[in-house]
């Protein structure tokens, strides 16, 4: 068993993938000589050499475009976009080029590329470097999208992503890079895409979380005296409808804990679908615990007010379970006691 930080687990996944398959190459801004700004690729250059591990200029469009082409040409590139907000300059290459190549060549050309990127708030990177932006990818035919929630899932999902025949975007909550988890790296640790994980079982309500909100939700649930099932969605496209529906059908209640602002993101998608499929079977309205619809504020107090904290999540879940009605979010109660 290894006890790895999430960034080390990502490095281990990259190394194991490169060792397994000589067509795997890694590139991005400062991923080679420096091992990545978040230290997710330390040692790869030394071990696999400069042909397969490359630093790029600050050119996100070229980074993704080169990954698309390299994958078309028979490599399995794993490219890094340092902060997911930067997809704003390179989205075309992900969703309009890379994701459509297989369809538009009627299967003649595949694009087995992985684009990794860090997401989320909680590290003081402020408004332009803290979003999760999953909505940019959620609707893209041809693409798969995962968001890891710790060292183990980062390792397992990244290994699986590299083995996919089509393009995969892997989102990594940057607040978790330094957190540790114990697990055994290797083939058995590979986590198939498209399958959610039930993190704890429960009978009274189902909570679905993604990325760093998995840990937050878990902590919140521990504070409550209720039997709550916690699901880590892991893959956002295609998400595991069956696992979620089966759980909610049993518990009758669904709450989502989202880092994304209330409008958009993966939450409405899940809420809308479950609401359709389990119409009449829910005992309370679907609760969405989210960030507010504002840019991520810098100052620490506000950033951690913006992010749903375990305390806040516990309070919201508690009120909801007690009353079977939706508690208003904190921002509708500014001035009142929270």
């Amino acid at each position, binding site marked *: 068993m290894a006890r790895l930080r999430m960034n080390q687990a990502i490095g281990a996944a990259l190394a194991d993938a490169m060792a397994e398959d000589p067509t795997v190459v890694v590139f991005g801004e400062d991923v080679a000589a420096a091992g990545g700004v978040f230290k997710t690729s330390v040692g790869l250059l030394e071990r696999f050499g400069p042909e397969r591990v490359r630093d790029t200029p600050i050119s996100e469009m070229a980074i*993704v475009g*080169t990954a698309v*082409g390299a994958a078309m*040409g028979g490599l399995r590139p794993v490219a890094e976009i340092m902060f997911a907000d930067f997809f704003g300059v390179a989205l075309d*290459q992900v969703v309009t080029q890379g994701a459509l190549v297989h369809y*538009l060549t009627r*299967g003649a050309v595949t694009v087995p590329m992985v684009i990794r990127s860090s997401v989320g708030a909680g590290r003081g990177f402020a408004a332009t470097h803290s979003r999760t932006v999953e909505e940019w990818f959620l609707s893209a035919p041809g693409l798969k999208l995962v968001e890891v929630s710790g060292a183990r899932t980062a390792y397992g999902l990244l290994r699986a992503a590299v*083995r996919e*025949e089509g393009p995969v975007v892997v989102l990594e909550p940057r607040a978790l890079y330094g957190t540790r988890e114990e697990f055994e790296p290797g083939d058995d640790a590979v986590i198939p895409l498209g399958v959610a994980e039930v993190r704890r079982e429960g009978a009274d309500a189902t909570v679905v979380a993604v990325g760093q909100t998995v840990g937050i939700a878990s902590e919140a649930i521990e504070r409550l005296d209720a039997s709550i099932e916690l699901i880590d969605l892991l893959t956002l496209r295609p998400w595991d409808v069956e696992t979620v529906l089966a759980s909610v059908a049993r518990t009758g209640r669904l709450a989502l804990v989202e880092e994304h602002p209330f409008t958009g993101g993966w939450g409405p998608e899940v809420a809308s679908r479950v609401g359709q499929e389990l119409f009449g079977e829910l005992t309370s309205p679907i609760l969405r615990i989210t960030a507010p619809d504002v840019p991520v504020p810098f100052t620490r107090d506000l950033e951690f007010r913006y992010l749903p904290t375990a305390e806040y999540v516990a309070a919201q879940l508690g009120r909801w379970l007690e009353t079977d009605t939706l508690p208003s979010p904190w921002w509708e109660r500014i001035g009142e006691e929270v």
Partner: protein
Amino acid sequence: MAIGKGPEVVTTYDAKTPLMRREEVIADPLARLERMMEIRHAEQKIRELHEEGLAWGSTHSCDGQEAVAVGIAAAVAPTDHVVGAHRGHGLGLALGLTPEQLLGETLGRSVGAVEGLGGSPHLVETSVGLVFTVTLMGAGIPIAAGLALAAEVQGSGRVAVAVFGDGSVNIGAFHEGLNLASLWKLPAVFVIENNHYGEFSRYDRTTAVEPLARRAEAYDLPWELVDGQDVDAVIAAVGAAVERARVGEGPTLLELRTYRYFGHSRSDRAPYRPEGELEAWRARDPIRILGERLEAVGMVDADALAEIDERCRERIEAAAAHALASPVADPGAMFRHVYPEPNR
């Protein structure tokens, strides 16, 4: 290799595969002349099909630019990788795509290059290295860099070629892709097909440098300005650039000067052309230039030229008839190939 075979094509009048068609163009000046005529007839036919209401959607014709397409096809090996753009009928046919594949795609039939699901700009035929056509301007440039990276890492000896228009030199992807390809000395050739207009704007009204290929200097790359109406000049320039790439000397930026005889797309009557411009360019018609050259050395005479032209006309008519008689894909087709099958 991730690139498999293209779809099986049912041909009517002759059994030439795309690869055979390509080899002819590489080997034989007469075949090049014939292919240029074939392209001209194909564009003419596509216009007719639209006028008759038999074809739909956007389409971009390349009449006048045939020497660029055929020259590239002759200078690049079928095992090299080419990324084209939206105005790709000529490049497709030149590289080896069959007339059925082109006409079928334009008409949205399952006999088309990509089963009619992509439409006229989306021509792909992996057996001759036409691996993708990119319809967002410049987006094919970093993709070609990536194909070249694959060639380099694999040591395959392949070269990657991106072909794009004069209007596509002002988009970020051009800049980022060329810089990266130069830094990594990738085996790539970047070809600006300067047909003088990006949609309705003359290139000198949108690009602050002349000639366009001079931008290569900003990336420490060699460049050349080439007569795109002379297929032999195109072959020489592209061939030299491909050779440089293949022996590890890195990318080249070429600018092939040419001209499009018709509007940007179907509805465009090109009112923005200065008077006399079209006529001046028609006087340098690439088919005529090659035809006269081959006549001068006795490879053809007027009768032979007429005969080749007629053969091309018939071939295109037959292909169109075949495509028109072919089925449209079933609705299930739109669900196929969205995702590839898992391989392990």
